[in-house]
């Protein structure tokens, strides 16, 4: 080694180091600059104005709790108690939850920790420990109010009082009185009426009681056994619509299944036409590949819109949209797999005098099956997610239910329920496809 060579090496090495150093500092800097650009391009400083903390609070509160409305209507002079204020959750006249005592002239509601709300005639009283009693009365000319001390103006901030409206918010509940009505909201943990609605004889019974009823002989409803009656009441729950929701989940899985396997069936013959070693004609190869690129490039979103115009909303539209997009994806993947097959096996089969179809069947298919199956099953799981998204756009399956529930902006407990179902659905599909992948590919390795 001469001195010049060493110097050359040294120079080269230090240049390399310099380049590396530049890269190591340059790349994070570029990313940082990009994020700064995004920060302003997406108007993140203005986010605080657009964001609604109230919405977030309602969303979080609703997702784990529910509220019961106790409404006094001054015009009809009637009291109505309804869970979430929904017609389906309304208590029948003369019945009430156990924290409400109906009286001759109104009702007494125990909110716990000494908070008591009383409706008596058209007077509404809220007894708050360590504060006193607030009284109010709806009337045409405005809400009459009596506070334990002070006037409308000098009340604490959890009391919002004006001429036509009084709102009292405590940690036990919320009371509003307007000119025509008084309404009390009480918050409770859990999803309301998840198993049985109020009209079911099984509502409000504990698990042990239900189990006892299930095994006991005397039916709550004549003709049907208790278990059947329970299942009927649960399955047809008007508030949560379990049967419809399960159908929707099934529809979503159906979309994914039909789309994935339909695409695979279409793509396999086309992939042979696009593979270099199986398709002798350049023009055919080129044409088929461009078809793959086209259906993939158009994307599921546009296919969904186009197909929904022809077939209307529903699971078929979603399935076909997935089918079209994935035909492109599978075609590309399959033809790449085909180009990588081992020619020796085909030659071996050919040497026994096999015809072209037999060569494909025994020389090619056994080689590619494990790869294709594993890709297919992987896409089945990912398409379950796509089917949820496409369902939200085109109107089918659990995606549709989810968007509908979000659009109402109040049934957040249903939204959380659907999200849980979607996550469970995708995870189940992931597990099943992973299990199948292991089983099928292993048995193929051992067998064929």
């Amino acid at each position, binding site marked *: 080694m001469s001195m010049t060579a060493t110097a050359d090496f040294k120079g080269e090495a230090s240049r390399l180091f310099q380049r590396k150093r530049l890269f190591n500092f340059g790349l994070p800097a570029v*990313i940082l600059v*990009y*994020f700064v650009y*995004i920060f302003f*391009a*997406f*108007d*993140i400083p203005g*986010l605080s104005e*657009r*964001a*609604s903390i109230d*919405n977030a609070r309602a*969303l979080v509160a609703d997702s784990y709790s529910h509220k019961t409305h106790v409404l006094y209507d001054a015009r009809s002079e009637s009291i109505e108690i309804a869970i979430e204020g929904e017609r389906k959750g309304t208590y029948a006249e003369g019945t009430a939850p156990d924290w409400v005592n109906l009286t001759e002239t109104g009702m007494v509601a125990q909110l716990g920790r000494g908070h008591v709300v009383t409706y008596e005639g058209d007077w509404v009283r809220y007894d708050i420990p360590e504060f006193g009693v607030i009284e109010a009365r709806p009337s045409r000319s405005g809400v009459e109010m009596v506070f334990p001390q002070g006037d409308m103006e000098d009340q604490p901030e959890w009391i919002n009082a004006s001429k036509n409206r009084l709102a009292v918010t405590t940690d036990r509940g919320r009371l509003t009185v307007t000119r025509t009505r008084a309404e009390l909201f009480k918050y409770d943990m859990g999803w309301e009426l998840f198993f049985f609605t109020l009209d079911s004889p099984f509502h409000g019974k504990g698990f042990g009681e239900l189990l006892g009823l299930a095994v006991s002989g005397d039916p709550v409803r004549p003709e049907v056994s208790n278990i059947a009656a329970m299942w009927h009441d649960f399955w047809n729950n008007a508030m949560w619509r379990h049967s419809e929701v399960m159908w929707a989940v099934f*529809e979503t899985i*159906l*979309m994914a*299944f*039909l789309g994935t*396997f*339909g695409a695979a*069936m279409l793509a396999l013959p086309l992939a042979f036409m696009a593979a270099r070693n199986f398709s002798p004609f350049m023009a055919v190869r080129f044409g088929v590949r461009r078809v793959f*690129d086209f259906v*993939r*490039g158009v*994307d*599921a*979103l546009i296919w969904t*819109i*186009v*197909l929904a*115009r*022809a*077939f*209307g*909303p*529903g*699971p*078929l*539209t979603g*399935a076909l949209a997935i089918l079209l997009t994935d035909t492109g994806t599978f075609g590309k993947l399959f033809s790449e797999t085909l180009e990588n097959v081992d020619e020796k096996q085909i030659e071996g089969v050919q040497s026994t005098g096999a015809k072209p179809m037999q060569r494909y069947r025994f020389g090619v298919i056994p080689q590619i099956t494990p790869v294709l199956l594993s890709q297919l099953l992987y896409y089945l799981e990912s398409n379950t*997610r*796509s089917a*949820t*998204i496409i369902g*939200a*756009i085109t109107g*089918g399956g659990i*995606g549709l239910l*989810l968007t509908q529930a*979000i659009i109402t*902006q109040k049934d957040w407990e249903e*939204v959380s329920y659907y*999200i849980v179902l*979607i*996550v469970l659905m*995708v*995870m189940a599909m*992931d597990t099943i496809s992973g299990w199948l992948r292991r089983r099928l590919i292993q048995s193929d390795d051992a*067998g064929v």
Partner: protein
Amino acid sequence: MADLSAQAPITTDGIRSAYMAMTRRRRLYSGAMLAIFVALMVAGFNLADSRNAGGFWDGWHNVLDFPAQVWGEAIEKAHELPGHFVTFFPALLETVNIAAASTLLGALLGILMSLLSTRGMARWPRMIPVFRRIMDILRAIPEIVIALVLIFVLGGGPVPAMIAIALHTVGALGKLFSEVNENASLKPVEGLQSVGASWSQRMLLGIIPQVAPNYLSYALLRFEINIRASAILGFVGAGGIGYELKNAMSWGQGKFDEAAAIFILLFLTIVFFDQISSYYRDRLTKGAQQ
């Protein structure tokens, strides 16, 4: 040899008949499987067809009506198309930006999560299952779910879409990255540890250089997927080209030239980024082989 033949007399005829029986049985099984599969597909399509608003057999000849209509209007007003391209370019840029920012964010968090959930590299080895479950859940939630909820809280715009896609990307890339990590050599990490390097130094200097090409290749693939996702999220109110498309569609007939322009822009963008990413991914994997 004598022992073997004493246990079971193996003759060519015996082997032959056993083999034929096995083949027949296997053929029967595969035939039955195929029949069940075909029956499932047919029944599935019939079911989906019956639950669809419009039937397949009534609608299939209308499939081309809408594209024809859009195409017709686009041709009719061809001179306005370049103008539309210019109008919608900022929206397109927003869609691409959502995808890029969320891929970057998701990849950075995904690297962290993958390192934390790979045996031998994890900062807190006992927490590996926890990080894995977090990634599983993030991966299982479709972007649209998070996006719709965030749109309600944060208002419309690109930020909900970016967060939603980024979260999903963390789950998806985190899993792929941790598979890459498992194949990385732990020797550099041990070497660095012996000279007293901290965890972040060990990861940054010992692991990342080994796995960076594979990371990059997966991230590029994800970017491709995220462009599509970001267009779809725009359609449900998260801004970008999808939002413009929804508006253009709702204008109805006579305004389809705008929809056509957006279709073309979106198609070209997707194909463009597909090509670029597959070119670079090809180079990265080929480079790794050499």
